[in-house]
Structure formats: C-alpha cells, structure tokens
C-alpha cells in the first residue's frame, strides 16, 4: 500500500526547505505563471478544481474567495496555522518541510484576491516551524518574491508571521482575527463574514495552511489534473494525521475517498500487540466517533463521513483499541473543551463545564444512574445556539460516544469502575 504524494512529493528532501532547493524542484514557477494570468481567472480555476478548505469545515475555497466585495478596498489574506484540533499535526509538516510551498500558495492566492498584505498566524508552541518560516520569508524577500513589484510584475505583497500564545479557540477564524488584532481570541458573531468584514473590519480571507499549499498544485495541474484524484465532491489528495493506538502513526497523503481501513491497517500497520480495533475518531476530536465496524466501511471523503454522521474535519484520524475505556476517552476530551471554551456564550461555557464535571464524576466512581442520560441532554442543549462551532464540537462527540458505547457508560455508573478489564484509570485529580 502506498501514499499518493502530490503535495508532499519532495518533502523528504532536506534542500526543499530552502529557496534554492525548492526552486530546483520547480518552486515558484507557478507564481510566475499566475502573475501572467488575470486574478479573476485564478479564482475561477480554484473554483473549478473543487478544492475544499482543509482546516475543518470543508468549505469550497474558490467560492469563499468569490465572496469578497468587488471593489478596490484593501483586503487581507490570513493563513490559519493555529493547528489546535487534537490529533492534527499536518500543517506543522508543511511548514517544517516546505515553507516556500506555503509562501508560494499564499502569494498566488493573494494575487488572485488582489491582497497586498498577509499574515501567517502560527500557534505559539510551534517555535521550530516559526523559525523555519522566518528563514523562508527572509529568503523570499531577498529574492524579490515578496515586497514591491514582485518578479517585475507590478504586483506587490507583504507577508508576516504572527505568533499566537496558546488558545485553541484562536483557530476559529474570527477568534484568530480578534487575536491578531491584539485582543482576547474570542470569536465574533457571523454575519458579517470575514470576507466582507474581517481583520480591522476590512475584507479578509482566512484559509488553512494545507488549503493554501494546494493552490500551487491546482495552478500546476489545472482543475482537471487536480480532479484526477479524489471523488466528485471531494477532489484532490489530503494529508491525514494518523495517531492513537496504531503501529505506524504519522502523516499520510492519500486521495480523498481512500478507505479508512487501508489507512489504519495498510499504511498505519494496524493495531499494536495483537489488540483489536475498538473505535476511530476520523476528523479530529470534534468529529463524532465511529465504531470499529463503521470504520471498516468508511472512506475518507467529505460525503461518506457526513453520511455516517461524522466529518472529515481536519483529517486527524485517532485510533482507539480494545484496551481503551470509552468513558475515560470522553472524559479526556471534555476536559479539553471545558478548558478551551472562551466563555462568551452561556450554553457553551456552562455546557462544557457540566460535561467535564459529569464525566469526571462517573470516572471517579461517583456517577448517578441518571448521569448517562444527563450527558446526552446537556450536549443536546448546546447545539446550534452559540457564536462559534466549538459548542457543537464538544456536544457532538458526547452524543456519539454515549449512543454507540452506552453499555460502557452504564456499566461504569453501576459498578463504579470501567468495563474494560484491568483498566485502572488515572485519577480525576490528574486534571486540574
């Protein structure tokens, strides 16, 4: 079983991280090509490719770019490199191995949307990727690929890095904008959407790292070439971050529509030490969980996972084997969401607090018989009523865990211990 390395074709080459090496493998020739095209034609090309945002929501990229007002108003391009969705580590790969590919994709995007200023908003912990990017930006400025009159085209663009400071919610696009503006990273009510009113109230496009890097491939292969991989509704390849209980965790690039079981058992080498697959979270911690049986039939594309009641999300596949207690895993996630809720909306602030408290109570052996239904009810009340999607992102996993692994929850409540044999859980006070 093999990967389909389109975006990541040259990632194993050390020299690819530097301007000279990147150019040796064809780097920046797509920018040259783009600068000779009409900006609107590039937007149409990206629309025709069917590229969907790789940050989580899967929104068609070209369509989003088309929402910008058609006037000369200054507009910003923001690259979302906050990568905080548990299980996700693919943007880090792109930034570390191919910083110039990201810069080239951003420049093509900026030219297409006629933006003269962009920021790469990187999560604060990514010290090393930031250093690699800083070096790449310096090289690009020196080579006249950034700044005024880029490659003699008359187009000018400045790019800078902004370092976040530890807050998952800053990955949400309007939270990111608040943070970049120098405030708490709290999301803002939509509409207005950022494309109309974003950074400093100016039209703003926020795209994920992987989305922007893929723009280079679309320029190279054209919409049809890009659609050679993937499905009708999920064109192209995507990098999946595989982690959890799997023999060979890591980043794997495969065509969308790739069977999940081939990712886990083929590329990933299967479950370690003869254990059995129990469950899979297919799209980052916010995606509802799949049972082993469902996982064996799932394919990694937006439509199949949506049909199965879950989502492709950021492409983070978290594998859980039969040693894991589902109550414990849910407790771990609820602690995360409670910690990360920005607290603006009552259903989210209170709801994540309750979900955390109830799961910890069950885990400590103090669960009440009504707690399992209560979990479900609290989660149900958090859906669709808040400023951003974090509330739903916490609620949906709960409902899927409780529905699909009900027996483990009931057992825990009635017996004060995990149904998984020999499972001694780290204490609730582990969390603080």
């Amino acid at each position, binding site marked *: 079983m093999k990967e389909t390395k389109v975006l990541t074709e040259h990632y194993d080459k050390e020299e690819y991280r530097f301007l000279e090496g990147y150019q040796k493998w064809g780097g920046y020739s797509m920018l040259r090509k783009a600068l000779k095209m009409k900006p609107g034609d590039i937007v149409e090309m990206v629309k025709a490719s069917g590229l969907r945002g790789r940050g989580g929501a899967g929104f068609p990229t070209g369509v989003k770019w088309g929402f910008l007002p058609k006037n000369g108003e200054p507009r910003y391009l923001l690259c979302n490199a906050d*990568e*905080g*969705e*548990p*299980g*996700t*580590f693919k*943007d*880090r790969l792109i930034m570390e191995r191919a910083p110039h590919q990201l810069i080239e994709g951003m420049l093509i995007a900026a030219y297409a949307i006629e933006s003269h200023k962009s920021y790469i908003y990187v*999560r*604060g*912990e*990514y*010290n*090393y990727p930031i250093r690699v990017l800083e070096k790449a930006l310096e090289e690009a400025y020196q080579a006249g690929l950034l700044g005024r009159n880029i490659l003699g085209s008359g187009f000018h663009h400045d790019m*800078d890095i*902004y*370092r*976040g*400071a*530890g*807050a*998952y919610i800053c990955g949400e696009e309007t939270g990111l904008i608040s*943070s*970049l*503006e*120098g*405030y*708490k*990273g709290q999301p803002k009510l939509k509409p207005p959407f950022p494309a109309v009113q974003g950074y*400093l109230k100016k039209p703003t496009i926020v795209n994920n790292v992987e989305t922007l890097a893929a723009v280079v491939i679309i320029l190279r292969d054209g919409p049809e070439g890009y659609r050679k991989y993937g499905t009708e509704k999920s064109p192209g390849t995507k990098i999946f*971050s*595989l*982690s*959890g*209980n799997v023999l060979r*965790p*890591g*980043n794997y690039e495969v065509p969308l529509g790739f069977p999940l079981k081939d990712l886990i058992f083929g590329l990933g080498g299967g479950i370690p030490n003869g254990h059995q697959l129990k469950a899979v*979270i297919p799209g980052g*911690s916010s995606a509802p969980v799949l049972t082993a049986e469902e996982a064996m039939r799932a394919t990694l594309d937006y439509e199949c996972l949506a049909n199965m009641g879950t989502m492709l999300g950021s492409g*983070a596949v*978290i594998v*859980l084997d039969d*040693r*894991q207690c589902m109550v*414990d*895993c849910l407790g*771990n*996630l609820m602690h*995360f969401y409670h*910690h*990360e809720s*920005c607290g603006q909306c009552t259903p989210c602030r209170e709801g994540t607090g309750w979900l955390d408290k109830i799961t910890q109570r069950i885990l400590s052996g103090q669960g009440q018989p009504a707690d399992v239904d209560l979990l479900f009810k609290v989660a149900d009340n958090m859906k669709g009523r808040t400023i951003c999607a974090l509330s739903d992102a916490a609620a949906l996993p709960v409902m899927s865990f409780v529905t699909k692994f009900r027996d483990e929850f009931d057992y825990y409540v009635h017996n004060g211990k995990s149904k998984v044999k020999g499972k001694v859980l*780290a204490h609730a006070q*582990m*969390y*603080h």
Partner: protein
Amino acid sequence: MFALSPEGLERVKKEMRRYETKQSAIIPALYIAQQENNGWISDEVIDYLSRVMEIPAAQINEVFKFYTMFNQKPVGRYHVQVCGTLSCHVNGAPELIEFLCRHLGVKLDEMTADGKFTISRVECLGSCGTAPMMQVNDTYYENLTPEKALQILKNLP
C-alpha cells in the same frame, strides 16, 4: 520595579511599528517581558508595559489572562509541559506525568525546591503521531517513555 533591558524595550518598540495597530504588539510584548522576567508575568510587568506602550493596563491584563503560554506565577527554569490530550493519553501520558512528578517530588504546576523545574499538563501540542511527548521551554521531545523523559530532564544544565 520591573523594567525591560534597553534591547528588550527596543524590541517592543519595533513590534509596535510592525503591525497595522499597536494593540497587535501586546502578545509579542508579553513574550519579550516574560523572557526577561524569569518566565512569568507579574502585575508590575503589566504596569510597565502599559506605560511604555501607552495602552491601558486592564486591556493588557485581559490579553495576558486569556492565553495559556503566559504564566501567572513563577515557573522553574525549565517549564516541562506534558501533553495530556487523547492521542498522548492513550499512549502513556498519565503514567509519564505521574512518573515525572514522583521523581522530582512535586505536584503539577509546583516548582521544584531548587527552582529548576515546573511540570504542567497541557492540551494537544500537535505532536500526536509521536506520542507521548513533552515541551521543555521551546523544545519538543517526542516518542517518550517515563524513563527517557526523566533522563532528558536530568541531562539539562
């Protein structure tokens, strides 16, 4: 009284010119100040930044409190942040945290008596494929076992 070094102050001034508005320099300024204040931000630091940046202290304070990478109390020279989120959790993070705390004789977020270490449990650091992992100051250490992690800490100067 806290004050930045002349170089630190120059860096803050530069950050204030770097973005469209000077508010955007609050996070960078907090980083610079934290570095010069032994790894944490005190009320004095906030007051100082408020004066040199001409931004109300309340506004800087609000930003400071929102982000987990700014420490609200002193931490050891090495801040050991172990990821506890799901992929690390199912690959031995709880045992790792427990082991380090036991061997260094501290509870979570407590500083060792010699001021060298503080151990914290943090959320996903984007290193889930090499779990379990920890970040010590700015550096990631991946594919850990409890023994390996302790050895890494012991080897630090």
